């Protein structure tokens, strides 16, 4: 038993330079990326990066696997598209409307789903999202298979013309980076600490006096809202919202992104989204059967690289250090 006095051992949490550096690097990369890549492609990537990061907030840090995130993504996309096309509001309001819709959906689906854990949770979210899919299929405002198409992106705050590719690019890049910072902050906050505790040992967290259900719901809704933001940006970018974004396959894809990148890591979703979107693009003209390749990738990841790319690298580094 130690006889040392507590004072001598108190160590303040060191402010790690890594996240700040990561974000700086990200901003730098985003500044020069359009010079090398197709801006539209980069923007699409950013939308999915945000999607995956929002999803990871839930899976990676709260331990809840949602199989229904497409509902928030696609739902927000529909609302944003509808707002732009029919209500003809400015883009920032359209996006806000989309996010609000995702939050409401998140509250509804979350309230039911958090009553169970683990796979039950996964299957309930899947089923609820599927319900939403059928709603979108049948609701007249979504135009069925055609989707909501052909609207102008409008002017941000009434001033900046988002139909200009580079304006749009900087807008989307800024929103994405800010959201990633926000997610990082949530995860590394006192609140995030409680989420971790819940993931580790739920009964114990309850016995410490935390209303676990509320924390879970809060995390779920945050994740849903940020996912909605990603969906709204995507609708703005492509100027359409279709059923593909609410289909359960989309929920599967975001899981795959997070898994490939590394569950519960900061950079994982970025890398994972990059790989998956890049792969889809490559496969589109490769002549290979896409679903087979995706399915195979999924299996290989689960069997061999459960930590994901970033996770495996981190693990290697940690081992090196001993």
């Amino acid at each position: 038993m130690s006889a040392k006095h507590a004072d001598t051992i108190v160590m303040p949490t060191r402010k790690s330079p890594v996240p700040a550096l990561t974000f700086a690097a990200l901003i730098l990369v985003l500044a020069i990326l359009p010079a090398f890549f197709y801006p539209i492609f980069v923007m699409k990537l950013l939308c999915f990066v945000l999607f995956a990061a929002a999803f990871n907030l839930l899976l990676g840090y709260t331990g809840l696997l949602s199989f229904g995130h497409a509902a928030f993504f696609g739902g927000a996309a529909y609302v944003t598209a509808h707002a732009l096309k029919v209500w003809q509001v400015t883009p920032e309001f359209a996006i806000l409307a989309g996010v609000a819709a995702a939050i409401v959906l998140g509250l509804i689906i979350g309230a039911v789903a958090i009553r169970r854990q683990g796979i039950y949770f996964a299957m309930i979210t899947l089923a609820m999202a599927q319900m939403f899919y059928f709603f979108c299929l049948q609701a007249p405002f979504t135009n069925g298979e055609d989707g909501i198409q052909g609207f102008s992106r409008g002017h941000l705050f009434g001033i900046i013309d988002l139909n200009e590719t580079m304006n749009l690019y900087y807008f989307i890049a800024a929103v994405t980076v800010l959201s990633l910072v926000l997610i990082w902050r949530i995860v590394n906050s006192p609140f995030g600490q409680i989420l971790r505790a819940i993931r580790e040992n739920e009964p114990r967290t309850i016995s410490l006096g935390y209303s676990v259900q509320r924390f879970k719901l809060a995390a779920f809704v945050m994740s849903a809202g940020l996912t909605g933001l990603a969906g709204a940006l995507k609708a703005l970018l492509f100027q359409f919202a279709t059923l593909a974004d609410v289909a359960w396959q989309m929920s599967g894809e975001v899981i795959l992104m997070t898994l490939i990148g590394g569950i519960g890591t900061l950079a994982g979703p970025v890398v994972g989204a990059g790989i998956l979107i890049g792969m889809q693009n490559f496969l589109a003209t490769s002549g290979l059967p896409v679903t087979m390749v995706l399915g195979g990738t999924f299996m290989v990841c689960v069997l061999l690289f459960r930590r994901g790319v970033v996770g495996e690298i981190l693990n290697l580094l940690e081992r090196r250090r001993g």
Partner: protein
Amino acid sequence: MTTIFGVALPVLTGQLLIGLINGSFYALLSLGLAVIFGLLRIVNFAHGAFYMLGAFAAWMLLNFAGIGYWGALFLAPLIVAVVGMVIERTMLRALYGLDHLYGLLFTFGLALLLEGGFRHYFGTSGQPFAAPEALRGATNIGFMMLPNYRGWVVVASLVVCLGTWAIIEKTKIGAYLRAATENSTLVQAFGVNVPLLLTLTYGFGCALAGVAGVLAAPLFQVSPLMGSNLIIIVFAVVVIGGMGSILGAIVTGYMLGIVEGLCKVFYPEAANIVVFVIMAIVLLLRPAGLFGKDS
């Protein structure tokens, strides 16, 4: 011939019966899922793919080997079981100790791979498969014309379901399996060959999907996508019944088939989502499902 007889309760009773037939498929599939989940703690997302595989196996047996429906009814599930067992032995096994989510994700990938593969080699429009000679036509059962084949489906599925239930609940095998899911090393240390048992169980669960596939082949299109549409509903059925509850899966399967059938008469717009609505309600009132033991 094809009008509905008996004017008083015709449509309704007819629908009830038809719901029961649908329920047969739900029951068979959710039973397989429940067996695999209850005993291996794997959410078999590939279950729909195995169902499809069963139908395709029947079709291939007919077209490449000249083996008809009755032969296929035994051989096709066997083939599916073997495929399942190979997958379990070589891959799935590695995931037992891990979080259940990995099993779900792995089988999700497997489903994509299988369906993608069949789509690639057999196209998407599907293959025709005829009901056996003996079961064609329809019988007048008083209030409706019941296609013979559908009658057969109900009977066959009932037999299979009850048989499975009896095996699992009434024999030692069930106890071994349930124990093995909790602590397989210990059960092994007691002298039970758990790896073999798990392989066989997964094979058996897949075979149940295979049986459903063969039964479905003459009713629906034999197509690579036939399972992926069904699987999510079946998931909901299993959640409603209470995951892992064998009896729950069976009863809920039939029940939901009937509910869905009735919904098609009274409010067809909602027929697609009625199962999910019921699921949400059940979860709000009884989080463990209708037959689930609270965990």
